[in-house]
């Protein structure tokens, strides 16, 4: 078992069937890991956006309902919408945990290309997705 970083075209990543032997295959694998890493950042940010939206449903239900008549006819009450957001957040969280561990295990192959792919993916993901948080 490799315990230090090395540059190589061969690696076995995560599953039996994902064994890489050729430079093209390695490039593809690095791309996949990069996308996984980007997706991880996106899911993280998506969770934050969902949390904010879930919070936005709460105060409105407290303040507006008591003062003003509901002007728009909503299909489901705010409580239900909050629960939907909560379930979505939970799903996002599970995806985030699994993706995080997957990327960690891929990096643990000690293949330097894979490692660089994960780092670049994380950087790109954070750079691209973070401004979207402000827009909500």
């Amino acid at each position, binding site marked *: *078992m490799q315990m230090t970083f090395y540059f190589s075209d061969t690696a*076995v990543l*995560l*599953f*039996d069937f*994902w064994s890489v032997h050729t430079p093209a295959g390695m490039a593809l694998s690095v791309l996949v890991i990069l996308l996984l890493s980007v997706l991880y950042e996106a899911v993280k940010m998506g969770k934050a956006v969902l*949390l904010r939206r*879930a*919070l936005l449903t*709460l*105060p409105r239900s407290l303040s507006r309902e008591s003062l003003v008549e509901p002007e728009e006819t909503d299909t489901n009450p705010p409580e239900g919408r*909050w629960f939907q957001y*909560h*379930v979505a*957040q*939970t*799903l996002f*969280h*599970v995806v985030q*945990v*699994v993706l995080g*561990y997957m990327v*960690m*295990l891929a990096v*643990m*192959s000690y293949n330097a290309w894979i490692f660089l792919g994960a780092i670049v993916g994380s950087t790109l993901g954070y750079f691209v997705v973070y401004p979207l948080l402000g827009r909500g």
Partner: protein
Amino acid sequence: MFLYAEHLSPCAVAIGLGCLSGSLLRAFLNISVAKMSHHGNGSMLPTTHPPEHHHSTAAPGSGHDMMMMAMTFHFSYKNVPLLFSGLKINSPGEMAGAFVAVFFLAMFYEGLKIARECLLRKSQVSIRYNSMPVPGPNGTILMETHKTVGQQMLSFPHLLQTVLHVIQVVVSYFLMLIFMTYNGYLCIAVAAGAGTGYFFFSWKKAVVVDITEHCH
């Protein structure tokens, strides 16, 4: 004040549940270790006798019994090492027990994360309340909380936070190492535990944020 008390109690529930799952895990570990030692007295130090070790754990299908680390995902319940040398999974029943224990450990981790956040927010809120001069009949409470503001680093909340942080780091490393066994069942247990814990504890987060924003 009523709101405040209401927001405190689920925190305690989260911590309580965490303690419960922690003690459950500890109980499981004890049982398992006891079983191990009961299984064979000589096998308590198997590393010194490699041939004997080889003989005792000739599991069909799991291949070599050296501490060969699997490097890809697999589903097996034979000869799966779990964190400690005394903890080795060899039967479906033990795997089921380990699944439950890991599930609760992951849930405990999520609960601990939320509880820490919630405690931190609570202490921050109390500090902010203290800085506000509120002339009221209950002056004794105000004085009492003023004292905690003065000592920042040696205060009880900060100490508690530090201890909880250490526990969180240890548990998160344990979960990482468990995932690193590449055992499919244990990985599913970690993911499912994280999801369940988040589902049951994180509604707290929403309510706490709402209250603090509501108050100011």
